């Protein structure tokens, strides 16, 4: 398997000395090129799991391997798109996208060309010389995506990337993202708490539950792309996932979502 997570456990020690278990015995394998959505309510350890796979945090016990090698630090091949975009405010959009190319063997003109290609891909060609602070949230998000894709990552980690966007922009971004990653052939691990978003994007949906954070169930999504929210398979899968979160007794809650 491409990514192998075995008996991953992560606890945080609080200042008062007590231990908080953020991940309890998580095991998961991911194929190359797969699009995985981590779905679950706040505090169930989605960000923690993402950080562990990306090498930003160390496990308390258990192992994470990518292509058979243990992960112990962040790598240029596996790029994270942070919840707050993480653009460098002192660099123009273009220079933000060039960031990951500067340590490679590219010349100045090559870097510029690549950055322009990816900015075009996310429809921001006209914004290359602007600064992040003068862009809208959705535009910043697209710059972050262009910057990540420009280094041709093997794995793309995304932590609730569309959480702050309006419904229309979000729908368009979901559509574009799926198209782009299919073309670029990279593996994606995508955190969300939006069930529809997960069904729309994922090859497999990993449902997590909190206290302690663990995997409750994994749903494969066998619906052809492009997917439509009203087709029967989509609706049926949504029902199944909702049932996972709300057992029969409080079925009424789902009408509020």
């Amino acid at each position, binding site marked *: 398997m491409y990514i192998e997570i075995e008996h991953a456990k992560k606890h945080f020690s609080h200042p008062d000395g007590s231990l908080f278990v953020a991940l309890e015995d998580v095991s998961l394998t991911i194929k190359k090129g797969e699009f995985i959505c981590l779905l679950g309510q706040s505090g169930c350890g989605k960000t923690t799991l993402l950080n562990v796979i*990306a090498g*930003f945090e160390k496990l308390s016990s258990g192992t994470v391997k990518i292509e058979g090698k243990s992960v112990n*630090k*962040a*790598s*240029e091949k*596996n*790029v*994270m798109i*942070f919840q*707050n975009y*993480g653009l*460098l405010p*002192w*660099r*123009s959009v273009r*220079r933000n996208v060039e*960031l*990951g190319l*500067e*340590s*490679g063997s590219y010349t100045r003109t090559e870097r510029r060309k690549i950055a322009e290609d990816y900015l075009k891909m996310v429809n921001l060609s006209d914004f290359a010389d602007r600064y992040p602070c003068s862009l809208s949230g959705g535009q910043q998000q697209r710059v972050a995506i262009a*910057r990540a894709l420009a*280094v041709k990552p093997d794995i793309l980690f995304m932590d609730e990337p569309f959480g702050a966007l309006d419904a229309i922009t979000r729908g368009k971004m979901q559509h574009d993202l799926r198209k782009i990653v299919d073309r670029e052939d990279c593996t994606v691990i995508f955190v969300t708490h939006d069930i529809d978003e997960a069904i729309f994007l994922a090859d497999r949906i990993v449902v997590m539950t909190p206290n302690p954070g663990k995997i409750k169930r994994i749903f494969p999504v066998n619906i052809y792309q492009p997917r439509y929210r009203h087709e029967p398979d989509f609706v049926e899968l949504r029902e199944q996932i909702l049932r996972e979160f709300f057992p029969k007794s409080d079925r009424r809650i789902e009408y509020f979502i």
Partner: protein
Amino acid sequence: MKKIWEITLSFGILLAIWQGIVAIGNFSPALLPSPWAVGEALFELFANGVMIKNILVSLYRFAMGYSIAVAFGAILGLVLGWYPKLFGYTNPILQYLRPIAPVAWMPFVVLLIGIGDTPAIVIIFLAAFFPVVLTTANAVRKLDPIYLKIAANYGVKEPEVLWKIVFPAVFPQVANSLHLALGSAWVFLVPAEMIGAQSGLGYMIVDARNNMRTDQLLSAMVVIGIIGLLLDLSIARGEKTVMKLWE
């Protein structure tokens, strides 16, 4: 346009108050000269070259002291902020030395080195160094960890990370401290030259006092104030330029 009008008006009021005190106070003109008399003294000092010579001497000392302080302060601040252990050992010393007024070192410096350019340069250095080094170190320590994650994620390696990520990220705070340090360093130029030098704007004040030339004394004060304002304006310009540089 409105701004120029405001400035003209405020200085006009200042001159009017001065003239008013001279008129009402009935002091001896030798003790409190009128604005007009100071204007004449200024003209004389510029005409005979004395003022220009002293301005150049003072600016030279100031530029030396300030730029050494900025270079050392910013570099040391970066290093101290980057290595928390080192900061732990150094911070108490810096905090201890900082509140000692730079001028307090003066007798010591004069005894060791003698009068001339060096004591003034040392005082200006001390006045600018502490705010710069402490602000820089603290800004680096409080750097948003996300920038370092991004650096690690996009393959920005250890020495590069300093000028590609850390320095631009802390630059706004550092620039602010440079700005403040510039003002306070200029303030300390006068006492430094009053004690440790035989030339410069600060020395002009001592010399004018010794010769009972209050008109020349006030002329020196006027020029010190104007240069202070100009320095302030030029560093604001400089900040903008450097901000572009990191882009």
